[in-house]
């Protein structure tokens, strides 16, 4: 049976970055990918706009993935494609992974795990649409796979529900490939996707965006023949009398992404309600020692550049943890001392912030922490403040904040380490003298 220091589950952008960094840190690394090719969802993301932050270039998603795939080929990472981790046991000293692939079942052990399992799309079953259940109702990601990987058109006359980025990208893609996109319907009063995608995917092709509208009913037997749309009130409830029937053969859903955490749950990893991903510390270690999480499995990102960044950190820290644990027992620190944490509590202005806690032992060695957050509502000029108990330790001003746009800041704690029992609070305030 093979033994590894770090096993990374998932070969998308987070997993690739994690495996590369863990290997560079000197760990023996296994990367498990259930598909036949590395790259994760980026394989079907043929559109450009990836890597602007990391590479200063507008790459396609596939191209962005290829950079890491070429990079990982230069490392000693062992890659296991078309392989599924069906079960993982926590043995206390590490993890026992039950793997299945074309060669049959096998087991390996690993000191640490990096969960880079990405996210899943919300499906028709998770949004409330009345009526029949005909063919032709698909998620935006599935439509993307149909067109870009299989070369098949999902339909000719399409309605898109939800204004998430993939839905917007698919509005353009369907149009370029000859389908008619009748409109994008968004129940919220503002779009969920990035502004540049509203502009280059909808405005460019004269595709109407109907805010505060939703699809209330699907029609058709066998194949979708049309949908009923309606305006919604401020509680997102359909307003009677505003219904309109739209004949179409395809309804594309772009109604949100949910971190994929089935393995994490079986391992007893605590999940955060707000992110639906693992609760983690600044090293991306979860509530279970030795299990790390990164990328969209941790919280849904809007930019892959940040996914890679979290993967790199998780990989590096997992390697450090594994190599530290490999030392003889007399050199190890007391575990109780290692696991002392302070919690980070965002106020009601935040949809969420990550990480949720700081692990004090490692914070003393590396004080730099990246914070990621989303605001709950669209806001103008806003000041974000961080308090250690009642002392303000950090402020940053933002011209505007929108829930679809993840924000990031860094703070270095090495000048004043928090102590056990203290609390870190994040607060949002309207910026003074800013009326824009």
């Amino acid at each position, binding site marked *: 049976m093979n033994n590894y220091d770090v096993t990374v589950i998932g070969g998308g952008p987070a997993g690739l970055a994690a495996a590369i960094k863990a290997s560079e840190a000197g760990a023996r690394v296994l990367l498990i990918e259930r598909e036949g090719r590395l790259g994760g969802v980026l394989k079907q993301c043929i559109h450009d706009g990836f890597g602007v932050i990391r590479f200063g270039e507008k790459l*396609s998603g596939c191209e962005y993935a290829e950079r890491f795939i070429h990079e990982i080929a230069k490392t000693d990472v062992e890659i296991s494609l078309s392989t599924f981790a069906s079960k993982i046991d926590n043995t206390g000293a590490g993890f026992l992974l039950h793997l299945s692939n074309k060669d049959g079942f096998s087991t390996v052990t690993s000191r640490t795990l990096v969960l880079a399992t990405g996210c899943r799309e919300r499906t028709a079953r998770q949004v409330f649409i009345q009526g029949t259940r005909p063919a032709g109702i698909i998620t935006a990601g599935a439509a993307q796979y149909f067109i870009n990987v299989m070369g098949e058109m999902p339909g000719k006359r399409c309605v898109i529900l939800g204004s998430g980025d993939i839905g917007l990208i698919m509005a353009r893609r369907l149009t370029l490939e000859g389908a008619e996109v009748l409109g994008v319907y968004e129940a919220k009063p503002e779009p969920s996707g990035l502004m540049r995608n509203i502009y280059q995917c909808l405005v460019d092709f004269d595709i109407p965006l109907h805010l505060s509208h939703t699809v209330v009913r699907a029609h058709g037997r066998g194949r979708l023949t049309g949908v009923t749309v309606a305006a919604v009130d401020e509680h997102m409830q359909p307003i009677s009398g505003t219904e309109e029937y739209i004949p179409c053969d395809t309804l594309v859903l772009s109604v949100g992404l949910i971190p994929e955490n089935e393995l994490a749950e079986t391992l007893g990893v605590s999940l955060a309600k707000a992110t639906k991903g693992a609760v983690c510390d600044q090293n991306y270690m979860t509530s279970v020692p030795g299990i790390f999480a990164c990328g969209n499995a941790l919280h849904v990102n809007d930019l892959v550049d940040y996914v890679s960044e979290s993967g790199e950190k998780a990989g590096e820290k997992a390697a450090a943890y594994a190599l530290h644990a490999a030392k003889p027992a007399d050199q190890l620190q007391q575990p109780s001392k290692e696991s002392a944490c302070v919690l980070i509590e965002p106020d009601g202005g935040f949809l969420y912030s990550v990480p949720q806690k700081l692990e004090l032992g490692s914070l003393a060695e590396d004080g730099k922490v990246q914070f990621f957050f989303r605001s709950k509502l669209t806001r103008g000029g806003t000041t974000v403040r961080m308090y250690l108990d009642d002392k303000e330790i950090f402020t940053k001003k933002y011209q505007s904040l929108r829930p679809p746009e993840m924000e990031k800041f860094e703070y270095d704690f090495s000048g004043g380490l928090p102590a056990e029992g203290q609390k870190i609070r994040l607060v949002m305030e309207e910026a003074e003298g800013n009326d824009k």
Partner: protein
Amino acid sequence: MISKDLICIVCPNGCRLHGEIDDAGNLNVTGNRCVRGKSFAGTEMTNPTRSLTTTVRTAFEAMPWLPVRTLGEIPKGRIPDAISELAAIEVSSKVMCGDVIAENLAGTGVDVIATMDII
């Protein structure tokens, strides 16, 4: 004078721009957070251009479609012609990410590259 409200598509910030070109041809842009926004507004108001990403057919069963993109931007109005030109292409050699698939797409002077390896 031309005046237009735009959204910058250069980076994920998506700055909301307001561009004005006066009768003497001087460009004035507000709302941009960097210089790229100004140059985007200038192009967008006079000759809007876009990069184009799509797929082309291959001769390989394991990967029947190859993702490609223009190596630069082409005039927006040339996109339909560019799409039909690319629809006629079939790649029969094992190209790598970055290899040129088509030169001078639809007479725009812009080449098209593969964005994935055929393996």
